[in-house]
């Protein structure tokens, strides 16, 4: 690398790493915040799911049919079934949370009304009323169990009830289900994190230097403009990558809490070394192209505020591109897709996360992004040479 480019990179890094506040907000805070927020969300969700487990709930059943009694008796041990009439006062007490119970009211002579009847006479079928308060987790669970049990009871056949232990009907493996989920979510998340890193520093790096008048001091040195452009883009990419890595670590650490993996759930996050290498390469290429694009916009902007305004619509486009994998089935087989900047990175990530990695698209993505970066360096050099862009107020 040319020595002046390296001098610019060192200066940008010195500026970044020397500013503890900037370092904290750009590299440490994103990962830390993601970890804290996702962990708290995960803990909250888990606690909502498990809240009320083991709590004893009373179920009052009015007009218990003879055919149903054994089924109710075989339900959860934390359920106390009492045969007792359900009154309007009881229902009012449920609403006021003065009664922790589920109230089931069968019509009189339920068995005679139901047995031998066909479902086509639905309007003539008897109705079972189940009263509960859904803000009580334990009561909600009992309601779900009873309504499912009654639903199955009404049918003349069952669907997909395992006949032997371990019998599977969905032939997708846990790994492929997990891969499908990750391939739809993670590409967008990663692109957003990388873009946030670029956004945090690129506007102030060039538009800020214009605003503060420090760019002119650089422009009167004998350094070539393309050395300055390359130095800016490479240093911004490096810093944005650090910010992206921080966010990635935050997600990686909080993900098990978020989705209950630390409770023993296997979400199929199993990837090979090749997958990780491809991911790293495509992240590098993507961050380079992002830094290039934002640097160009930043150079065109009059000041940092203007740069922020110019970059925002661009960020929305990247976000939209990140959403596309959710509406498609795996990565595209069309190589031309991998020539589209930003979207090519998302496509390769989709392929990696859905265990469909092929190296040709990775190479096409890397090569095209390097070419686009070269074009951006050329364009940025021209902007640095343009007195209208550099010095207009």
């Amino acid at each position, binding site marked *: 690398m040319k020595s002046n480019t390296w001098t610019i990179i060192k200066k940008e890094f010195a500026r970044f790493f020397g500013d503890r506040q900037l370092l904290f907000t750009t590299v440490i805070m994103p990962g830390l915040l993601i970890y804290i927020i996702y962990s708290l969300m995960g803990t909250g969700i888990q606690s909502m799911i498990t809240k009320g487990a083991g709590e004893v709930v009373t179920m009052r059943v009015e007009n218990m049919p003879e055919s149903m009694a054994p089924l109710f008796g075989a339900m959860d041990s934390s359920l106390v079934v009492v045969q007792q009439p359900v009154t309007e006062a009881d229902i009012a007490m449920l609403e006021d949370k003065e009664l922790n119970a589920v109230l089931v009211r069968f019509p009189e002579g339920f068995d005679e009304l139901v047995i031998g009847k066909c479902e086509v006479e639905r309007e003539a079928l008897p109705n079972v009323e189940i009263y509960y308060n859904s803000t009580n987790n334990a009561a909600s669970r009992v309601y779900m169990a009873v309504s499912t049990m009654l639903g199955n009871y009404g049918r003349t056949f069952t669907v997909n009830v395992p006949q032997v232990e371990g019998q599977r009907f969905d032939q997708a493996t846990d790994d492929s289900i997990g891969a499908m989920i990750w391939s739809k979510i993670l590409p967008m998340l990663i692109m957003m994190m990388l873009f946030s890193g670029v956004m945090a520093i690129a506007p102030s790096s060039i538009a800020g230097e214009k605003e*503060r008048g*420090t760019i*002119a001091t650089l422009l*009167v040195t*004998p*350094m070539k403009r393309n050395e300055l452009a390359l130095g800016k883009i490479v240093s911004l990419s490096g810093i944005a990558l650090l910010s992206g890595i921080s966010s990635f670590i935050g997600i990686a650490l909080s993900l098990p809490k978020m989705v209950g993996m630390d409770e023993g759930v296997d979400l199929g996050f199993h990837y090979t070394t090749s997958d990780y290498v491809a991911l790293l390469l495509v992240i590098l290429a993507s961050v380079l192209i992002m830094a290039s694009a934002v640097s160009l916009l930043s150079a065109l902007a009059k000041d940092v505020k203007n740069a922020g305004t110019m970059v925002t619509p661009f960020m929305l486009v990247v976000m939209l591109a990140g959403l596309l994998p959710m509406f498609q089935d795996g990565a595209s087989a069309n190589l031309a897709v991998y020539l589209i900047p930003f979207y090519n990175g998302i496509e390769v990530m989709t392929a990696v996360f859905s265990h469909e990695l092929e190296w040709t698209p990775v190479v096409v993505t890397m090569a095209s992004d390097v070419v686009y970066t070269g074009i951006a360096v050329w364009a940025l050099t021209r902007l640095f040479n343009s*007195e209208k862009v550099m*010095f207009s107020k």
Partner: protein
Amino acid sequence: MEEILKVEGLSKTFTLSRKQQKIERTTAKRKVAVDNLTFSAARGEIFGLLGPNGAGKTTTLRMLSTLIKPDSGDAVLDGCSVVRQPEEVRGKIGFLTSELKLEDFFTPNYLFDFFSQLHGVDPNTTAARKERMFKRFGIDKFAEVKVANLSTGMKQKLSLVISLVHDPEVIIFDEPTNGLDVLTARTVTDYLQELRGEGKTIILSTHIFSLVERLCDRVGIIIDGRLVACGALSEICNGLTIEDRFFELYKEVKGGEE
């Protein structure tokens, strides 16, 4: 004396935005900032460009420092053309103007090393030059203080020092004492004379008559982008003071208009 700078037919026209048209109180869409400027400067002299605000002094100096390109004409500086060899020219000049700022975040020590590297000065020379210049301007005590925390005068002195990290042959100063307190202004003007003594050429712009009288060997008077007089002070003043001569020329050009 050896000619180190030769300016020939240098011209620059700017397109005015609506905002600029309002400020300039004109409906014209273009403004001729510098019109066919021709002059030269010899090695070891201080050449002053004297003129009122908006006369085209700063534009001329910015073209000489290659920050902006002339529409026509050229200037050859120590054998290098500002149009065809801008990078070589930038290596030969030290340029200082109030619009060039230093990053607040860094220390004088860091900035001196950084700009020395960009100018390709070797580390040993950098260290020796830094020690000498920091001492000369009293920056040595603040070498590790961030620019943001320096006084205005100290920042100006640091800007001057930074513009000279590579020991250039030609030094271009736009209004060198503007905004400086009297002590700092004196330090700067004394140093300019010192540099002349070392054989350096200094091109400066100013609207301060006393500065021209005290410092300049030769002067060019620029009004409305045109050079209306150029030569040694004694040649262009005809026994008048530079101030009286300037207003005489100003009236001739403007026809009595203010």
